[in-house]
């Protein structure tokens, strides 16, 4: 693990809105094949952080590297072109379009030949087939329903469509903003399974969530944001929910229990080292 380059890395991100400092030098790493949860209290700067990483906002200072290469993302489209797909909290899908249309919205394939170039005809069959394949790959659809309007789906199924779209087109990573916030218990479970499957299929995931049980159920590592900075990176194996919340709210200052060491290890891309350190600390 030590030599692995982070898929996405940020150093010293600063973002100010007038006098308000939303990000005060935040760092960030996402490694291949992991689900990284980002947690933080309201105002901790996690939305701003995610906006910077998804191209929705340009940071005032700091660097972002993708696969070790410095990048600048001026808008979400540029981020998407680089293989970063984002699923937004509430605005995930277009209800009156069918599943296939939603999956391909904004990048519809055209039919081959003159029908496509002159008449600009969509390749509807390809859209249906590909959509079906992606949905089946993620185990979220029985095949005959691909032409169904999204509004006839339940909230969890809609979120499934949104996640499937991101997974289908994200070549590097997927960012999910509060994917379970509007869902019931059972549906949340399904979406969490789906997220794990996206990771298992090889795509790293950034998961922003307020819901600690969900974070602890599915995340490999947890980035804790507080007062515009990353204060710690912990793992569900080494920390309890209460401990994570304590760090998040500032009840436990980073450093007191050796969390800086944890951050240090995390920065060296050393997940195992992180775990070991934490175990030692616990003893």
């Amino acid at each position, binding site marked *: 693990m030590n030599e692995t380059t982070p898929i996405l890395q940020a150093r010293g991100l600063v973002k100010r809105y007038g006098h308000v400092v939303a990000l005060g030098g935040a760092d960030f790493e996402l490694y291949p094949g992991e689900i990284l949860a980002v947690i933080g209290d309201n105002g901790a700067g996690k939305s701003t952080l995610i906006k910077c990483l998804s191209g929705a906002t340009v940071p005032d200072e700091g660097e972002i590297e993708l696969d070790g290469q410095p990048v600048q993302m001026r808008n979400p489209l540029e981020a998407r072109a680089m293989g970063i797909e984002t699923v*937004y909290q509430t605005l995930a899908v277009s209800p009156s379009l069918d599943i296939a249309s939603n999956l391909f919205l904004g990048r519809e394939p055209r039919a081959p030949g003159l029908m496509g170039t002159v008449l600009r005809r969509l390749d509807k069959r390809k859209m249906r087939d590909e959509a079906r394949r992606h949905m089946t790959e993620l185990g979220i659809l029985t095949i005959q329903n691909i032409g169904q309007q999204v509004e006839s789906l339940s909230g969890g199924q809609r979120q499934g469509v949104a996640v499937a779209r991101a997974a289908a087109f994200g070549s590097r990573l997927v960012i999910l903003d509060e994917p379970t916030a509007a869902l019931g218990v059972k549906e949340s479970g399904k979406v969490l399974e789906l997220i794990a499957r996206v990771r298992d299929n090889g795509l790293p995931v950034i998961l922003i969530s307020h819901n600690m049980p969900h974070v602890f159920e599915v995340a490999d590592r947890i980035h804790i944001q507080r007062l515009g900075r990353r204060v710690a990176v912990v793992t569900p194996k080494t920390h309890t929910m209460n401990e994570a919340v304590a760090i998040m709210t500032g009840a436990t200052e980073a450093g007191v229990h050796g969390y800086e060491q944890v951050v240090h290890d995390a920065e060296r891309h050393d997940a195992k080292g992180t775990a070991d350190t934490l175990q030692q600390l616990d003893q």
Partner: protein
Amino acid sequence: MAEEHRRGLRRLIPAPQGAGPSPGTGGIEAAEARGLGARIHDILHANAVIGPAIVLLLAILVFSITADRFLEPRNLSLIVQQVMVVGTLGVAQTLIILTAGIDLSVGAIMVLSSIVMAKLSADSGVPGLLALLIGFGVGTACGLINGLLVTRLRLPPFIVTLGTLNVFFALNLYYSKSETIRGVDMPDLLLWTGNTFNLGDTKITYGSLLMLGLYGVIAYALSSTAWGRHVYAVGDDAEAARLSGVRTNRVVLSVYVLAGLICAVAGWFLIGRIASASPQAGGTANLDSITAVVIGGTSLFGGRGLVVGTLFGALIVGVLRNGLTQSGVDVLWQDFAVGILIIVAVAIDQWIRKVKA
């Protein structure tokens, strides 16, 4: 690199077998047996044009009984001619309403374009084809102004087009000096849309044929091109569409520009229909076009509807007015009936839009 290897693998690795469409995966269950109302709801939800089609057939059926001459080819042809102008404006209005907008200026754009075409050719000696194209250009420019005000200044379409309705209409009065231009002063091309050819015993105007062609083209564009999907997506939820990578402003602008052009085409049809160009023509055209769209099952809230529904909507109004006249009913009851239809159509739309639990 390891991550590249993983990325490559992603395409190859099938979903874990045990975790296929198992109970925990959110497979979409088939609709269970439900009540009659719910089933009707489902059908209408899946296809919003069925309602208007049934109403149209019913109206034709009733009037063919109550009025002897209703089904005569001559009368049916007349209905289509009467619908030609409003039906064409309805295409423009449908596009705009699909984006969750509204265009109160369609009638004004139509009249202004028709006056420009007629006056250029009749008074300034511009050749017919050039005058026609300049008229189309004027309509397109009007649409562009509407579109820019909506997308750049972010003003509500209702306000923008309420304003431009007055501006365009005033320009029309200014340019025409409030005078009607007679058909005899115009080149044949401008009057051509009112000319007829015989199909069996029935006289059909070229304008109505062009109108049907226009419906075909727009129906194709909406159903089978990426642009069409984007029009629906923008009307459905503009923010979601934007975040999906749809350039929403560009889509909305293109819709207003196209609508402007279609209004100018309607202006051409209008000249053919009344065999002159009058600055006072088409006074009720705005509301009539909205009526056709609404009765045709397109939702005023955007994102839902079919352009062919508007054709049905325009024909329903045409059939109703014609049939009631033929049946000897006082004209005021025509308005009464159309009014009821509008309310029923929107009530049905509200019901259809309710998403099942």
